[in-house]
């Protein structure tokens, strides 16, 4: 026991003090934030501050289009209206597009009794976002014009065109009804499932890599004179697992600090509001530890049978297959988190951590399902550990030779 804890402490301190830990602890969230930030800012800027001309022989329709474009809070396009416009006006405006004075020209040709025809000309063929906004504004304006022409009030026509929003509510297990945001819940579950699978895989691989490195450096021979193989494996699993928990704790504390800041408060409200429940906060580390132990003990057994990191890498995709399976089941779980297959996947130990978090995003499953899921995971960890410890015990000692059954039996007796 003492040696196991000493080995765990060494593993923990060496990894936490290492450059890789510091880099990934700071670097991964920074890169993630950068990607999200750049994407968000780019999205805000796309199609904005464009100067677009709307030319039509129908001044009323042209005015409606300008109003719709000006009302698009994301687009913020400056719109020039030329109406009623002649073919000469069109040619003049096209020249302005050519010389870059205008970003685009929407030419709308109306004829009584027919649907208007329209062309949008711009310098950039790839500016589909502005083109889409112009198209949307045009269609809304035409419907508006027709509705008003049919006698409807401007306000009623606008309301009809803008559509009706649907508020979503969820009936909780205690019978209470709460307003929810399905999209935000999905993304919350998705992000947590990715975080869970990513960290269990990363730290499972760290265990495997550490074993291969020690096997290659032959430090095992020094260590075996001091500690038993099971102490060495258990110490390694505990130490590397603690590193993972430390890193996740740092990320969660940092995320919490950001979420309560005024900046985040301004962004993460309304539709983007995310609420982490106590159940999720408690079960996340539980499923991390269980998932990590399952995968790392599997990787440890594999690593002990390999001679080089290259050899290990060949087996890694096979060992990681259940994680891929989990993500392949996303749509199934999202569509019906209580279907037979969703529940079965959240019980199946290799997919349980990820699937359970996806299910929780939609609806918190009943307590007995958590109990079954955690119970089966624990049982499977015990089984994989039993197998891996024996593989490890023999694998690290057998240089370039497969263990035979009599040798395995002797080692069992010896330990």
């Amino acid at each position, binding site marked *: 026991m*003492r*040696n196991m804890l*000493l*080995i765990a402490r*060494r593993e923990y301190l*060496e990894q936490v003090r*290492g450059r890789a830990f510091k880099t990934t602890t700071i670097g991964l969230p920074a890169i993630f934030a950068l990607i999200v930030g750049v994407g968000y800012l780019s999205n805000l800027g796309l199609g904005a501050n464009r100067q677009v001309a709307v030319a039509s022989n129908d001044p009323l329709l042209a005015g409606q289009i300008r109003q719709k474009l000006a009302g698009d809070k994301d687009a913020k396009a400056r719109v020039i209206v030329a109406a009623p416009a002649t073919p000469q006006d069109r040619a003049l405006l096209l020249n302005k597009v050519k010389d870059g004075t205008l970003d685009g020209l929407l030419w709308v040709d109306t004829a009584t009794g027919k649907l208007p025809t329209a062309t949008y000309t711009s310098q950039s063929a790839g500016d589909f976002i502005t083109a889409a906004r112009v198209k949307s504004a045009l269609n809304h304006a035409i419907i508006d014009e027709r509705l008003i022409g049919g006698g409807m009030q401007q306000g009623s026509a606008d309301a009809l065109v803008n559509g009706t929003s649907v508020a979503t509510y969820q009936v909780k297990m205690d019978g209470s009804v709460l307003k929810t945001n399905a999209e935000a819940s999905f993304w919350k579950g998705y992000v947590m499932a990715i975080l869970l699978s990513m960290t269990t895989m990363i730290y499972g691989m760290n265990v495997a890599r550490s074993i291969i490195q*020690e096997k290659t*450096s*032959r*430090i*095992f*021979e*020094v*260590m*075996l*004179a*001091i*500690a*038993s193989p099971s102490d060495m494996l258990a110490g390694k699993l505990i130490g590397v697992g603690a590193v993972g928990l430390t890193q996740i704790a740092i990320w969660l504390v940092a995320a919490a600090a950001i979420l309560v800041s005024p900046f985040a408060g301004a962004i993460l409200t309304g539709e983007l509001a995310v609420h982490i429940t106590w159940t999720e906060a408690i079960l996340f580390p539980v499923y991390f530890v269980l998932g990590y132990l399952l995968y790392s003990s599997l990787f440890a057994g594999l690593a002990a049978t390999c001679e080089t990191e290259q050899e290990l890498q060949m087996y890694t995709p096979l060992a990681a297959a259940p994680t891929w399976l989990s993500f392949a089941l996303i749509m199934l779980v999202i569509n019906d988190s209580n279907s037979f297959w969703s529940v079965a996947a959240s019980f199946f130990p290799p997919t349980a951590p990820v699937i359970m978090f996806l299910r929780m995003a939609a609806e918190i499953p009943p307590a007995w399902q958590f109990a079954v899921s955690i119970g089966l995971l624990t049982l499977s960890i015990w089984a994989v550990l039993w197998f891996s410890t024996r593989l490890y015990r023999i694998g690290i*000692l057998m240089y370039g*030779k497969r263990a035979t059954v009599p*040798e395995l039996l*002797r*080692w069992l007796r*010896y330990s």
Partner: protein
Amino acid sequence: MPVVELAQVTKTYESKVAVDHLSLSIEAGQMFGLLGPNGTGKTSSIRMMMGITLPDTGSITLFGKPFERASLKRVGYLPEERGLYKKMKVIEQLIFFGELHGLHEAEARSRATDWARRLDIDDSLHKKTEELSKGMQQKIQFIGSLLHDPALIIMDEPFSGLDPVNAKLLEQTLLALKDQGKAIVFSTHRMDQVEKLCDSICLIDKGQAVLAGKVREIKSRYERNHVMVEFEGSEAFLQSAEVAEAKNFSGHAEIRLRPHGNAQKLLREASACATIYRFELVEPSLEEIFIQTVGGKVDA
């Protein structure tokens, strides 16, 4: 009571017999040399003593009891293929090894510092292992195997890769440990070291002990048929009928006599043609015995 004893130990890997019915016994206060050409079973034998591999047949006892892991707390081991944690600082690594052997951190630190001073590497204690030369790393491993003051020290090729100064330092350290009553087993190819350091040896060839016992007894089994001559004058006596083989190094000749060759007759012949400063009849060196034995040309 022997500190370590192997009785009829056999170890086979696939179809290769690495160790074949090997028996040996090592007492406290004894320096024991395990000799043999490459791949003859020295490392396999050492690994079985450490419980790293198990014998197929035969038995191993440590400190008078059948092998058990608990006995390893009293054993210091330096394997042939040495490893250290490259990213760790030397002092942290030594403390870690000491703690694993049951020492408290302060005690491990104190002993590591003392040993580092003794082996002249105290300047490197706070460096990372990867920053040190191979020789320095070997000294650290040497210290790591001795921190817990083991009663039995097992070292596989402890002098390989060391320069003469550091090899001498390690020799002196091992002799001092032997004087403290430790049992020391080491394998080596360096016959001069075995001759200087070991009380007993076991020469292994193809997994079998082909020569074993106390160094003095083994050497006494061989005829004194080697002559060292320092002379000035004609070297015609080197062609004598008594001489089987002679090497002349400008006035210093090493001569091997024919079986039952007459050394006195050779001395008379040498005196007749040269001035003799030294004429010494010596026993064969361990290296010669080693080569003769392994080569199947044993004269004894």
